[in-house]
């Protein structure tokens, strides 16, 4: 278990970042605000906003973090990297 961004910044739910790699259906981000799943906790649901989300928007527009009208895909394919890791005994 590394130190996740969400450990250090639990209240930051929107993060501007860069795609460093991509394949169909998946991207690798330079930095991620998402909890990846583990310890019995499900992975965060994620949404990505493109360039438009960074532009100043009129007051009537929903902010980039608004979920209205958006479907949230659940990223739950990844299971706990740390929950399954090893027994306390073998770690000694």
């Amino acid at each position, binding site marked *: 278990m590394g130190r996740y961004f969400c*450990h250090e910044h639990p209240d930051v739910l929107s993060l501007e*970042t860069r795609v460093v790699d991509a394949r169909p259906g998946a991207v690798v981000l330079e930095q991620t605000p*998402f*909890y990846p799943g583990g310890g019995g*906790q499900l992975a965060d649901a*994620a949404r*990505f906003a493109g360039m438009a989300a960074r532009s100043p928007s009129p007051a009537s527009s929903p902010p980039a973090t608004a979920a209205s009208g958006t479907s*949230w895909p659940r990223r739950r394919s990844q299971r706990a990297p740390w929950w399954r890791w090893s027994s*306390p005994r073998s770690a000694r």
Partner: protein
Amino acid sequence: MVAVVEPAFRAMMAELHTGTHILNALVFQQFDRALVTGAQLNDDATARMDFDLPDADNDKLRALEAGLNDLIRQDLPLRYTYVPLVEATAQHGLIRSRSVAPPPGDDGLIRIVEIVGLDRQACGGTHLASTARSRPLRILKIDNKGRHNRRIRIGLGG
């Protein structure tokens, strides 16, 4: 691009995860330092925890519900520290799971979640800032799962 976490889902996971810590703290304290054998938070505001509790009375486990909600009302803060894995494994219960331990980070340290005044245990999840931010919890069901395991299902909301 901007990566956005669904706020409501994260909040519910943090609420449930805090609730499971309160539950396993009470089980640890009141049932001979019993350890956790499994846990799963669900997307329907419920969670289950499995404990190594071969001889426990299910009525006594059910009666933990009042204590859970009392601890929620006390609004205990949560804090995080990082300790060396060797130190964590040397103290019974700091790694609350019976069979697995979170791996340390690159610095050899593991994350400890403390509910101040109640409990400390290794965990990499997300939690509330303090317990009173949680809705009340109900104990929904208790099942015997084999000779050793007792499964407690909890749900958020009155």
